[in-house]
């Protein structure tokens, strides 16, 4: 699934990495501007840049979690996100996107299998229950956690938790996988392992992979790398850029 962005502008007064909830804060004025960006279908991309440069915000804009103030085009595949009502955006996110977060965002009260199956609890899936269970077993086998299917996620190491989060993102064979600093909390060995795993799995299901990172060591093997410093600007008090 290709990504096509034209003249996207997003600004709010909070920290760019702080996200949607802090957007109403007046403390740190911020503006993100992406004049043009094309990511081809099935390819692997990385966004790099210093902390707070707006990479996470960009990812959230693509996921439809945030709405840009102005944008000529924000197209994912054949769908123009700008014109999508919120219900369709949610369905799009549930059925066609796979999201991996830096802090995994697993639910502590669910075990490994239940966490992976969580997206199917939130929206209807085209797969049957048996297909989904088979898929979970397959994914867990691939990430080396097959024997920990029923274990509470709190009993897993951070690397294992991130692998579970990747399984959850890939469960419904999404066309686009967005990974926000997926290795940010991991040790160097785990980082490489997780990135390789993510790339392999996305290649297998022919998903477009977009990874946000500030770790240049992980960029090897990526089809394209975009430096987000070019798109980000922080306003001085009262002055627009």
């Amino acid at each position, binding site marked *: 699934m290709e990504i096509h962005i034209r003249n996207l502008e997003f600004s709010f007064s909070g920290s760019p990495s702080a996200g949607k*909830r802090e957007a109403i804060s007046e403390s740190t004025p911020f503006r993100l501007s992406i004049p043009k960006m094309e990511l081809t279908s099935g390819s692997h991309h990385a966004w790099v840049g210093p902390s707070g440069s707006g990479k996470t915000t960009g990812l959230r804009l693509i*996921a439809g*979690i945030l709405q840009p103030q102005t944008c000529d085009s924000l197209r994912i595949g054949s769908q123009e996100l700008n014109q999508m009502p*919120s*219900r369709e955006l*949610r*369905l799009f*996110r*549930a*059925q066609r*996107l796979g*999201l991996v*977060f830096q802090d995994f*965002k697993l*639910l*502590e*009260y*669910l075990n490994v299998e*239940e966490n992976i199956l*969580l*997206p199917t*609890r*939130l*929206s209807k899936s085209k797969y049957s229950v048996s297909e989904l269970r088979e898929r979970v077993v397959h994914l867990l086998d691939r990430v080396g956690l097959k024997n920990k299917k029923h274990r509470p996620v709190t009993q897993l190491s951070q690397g294992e938790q991130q692998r579970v989060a990747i399984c*959850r993102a890939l469960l419904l064979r999404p066309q686009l996988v967005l990974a926000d600093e997926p290795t940010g909390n991991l040790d160097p060995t785990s980082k490489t392992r997780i990135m390789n795993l993510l790339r392999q799995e996305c290649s297998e299901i022919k998903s477009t992979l977009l990874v946000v990172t500030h770790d240049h060591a992980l960029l090897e093997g990526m089809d394209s790398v975009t430096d987000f410093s070019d798109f980000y600007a922080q306003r001085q008090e009262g002055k627009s850029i």
Partner: protein
Amino acid sequence: MNALYLAWKYWTHYRFRSGTLTLCLALTFCAPLTLKWITSGFEKSLIRRAELTPMVLGSPGSSIDLTLHALYFQTQAPSEISYSEVDALESHQLGYSVPLFAKYQARGFPLVGTTLDYFSQRGLSITKGALFVTLGDCVIGAEVADELQLNVGDSLLATTENVFDIAGAYPLKMKIRGILSTSGGPDDRAVFADLKTTWILDGIGHGHQDLESSPVPENLTFSQSQTQIVANAALNQYTEITESNLDSFHFHGDMGDYPLTAVLIFPDNQKSRALLLGRYEGSETTQISICLEEVRGLLGMVFRAKQFFDLNHALFVGVSILFLTLTLALSWKLRQKEFDTLHQIGSPGSFVIKMLVAELVLLLIASAVLTALLSAALYGIASSLLKNSIF
């Protein structure tokens, strides 16, 4: 269903937290609920018994004491009236009367002297044995039999239990003729005997060695004339009525003067009731108490006291609900990241609300079940305590 599934998972994962909240809610509601059950049961029981006993005749004084004595045999017996009042009542031909003499006890249970009519009027039946037939027989309530482990054919000692009455009557060993079926009322915790049996305890009737046969043993006579023999304290008085000494039991004086503590009156109709009230109005030696009015008056006092407890409970429940609201609000605030995650991976906006509502419903259901169980346990304990003290 998915919201409920996640709510259930959350609820069971944090068992201690959920259990504590459930217990807090259950404890908050079980006290007022139990009190409501108890007062409601108390009210029903008192009203039912009062309805079944329209009027009570007794000595002047506290009408509530008279009513409670006649209905529950628990309060101190009021001053006595004479048996002639029963004859007078019957001569009016306005209803049915059942005399009671409930002055003494048998092993801690009230001993009620009455006639066989008492059992038919109260609708009491015998589960074992038969009703009393001869002097010295008694019938015991189901709980008396259970508590004292007594059976038909056993003996039960009735005592005057008055240590100051040195010249008083002897204890009487009574034979248990029958056991009453459980009625759920004060009759379960009473011993019933014929009026004459209880009069023996009062010293009006007695049985002793035969002084009329000749020659009278000299060591038993205090004085002797042609018409009268006065025995001394060495005379053997019987403390048990048996077939062999039954004939020696006799009563002194006029039966009309024998004491009663109350007479239950069952008027034929409303007119008879009104006439009876009119006839006894202004009487200086007796009073008629209308049981239902007395009981309602008593309940009025009880419920005024209950209103205070209700207010107290309402405040307590209000504070607990505020604390619960605060706890849930803080918990939901702490879980904001979890809700954001659900939103980001595609949950509809209403999903989190459904999940929270499901959690609340689970909490309320569990609390309701626990409240019911705790209340039932408390009710069981409280009603058995109340039964021993009031009913």
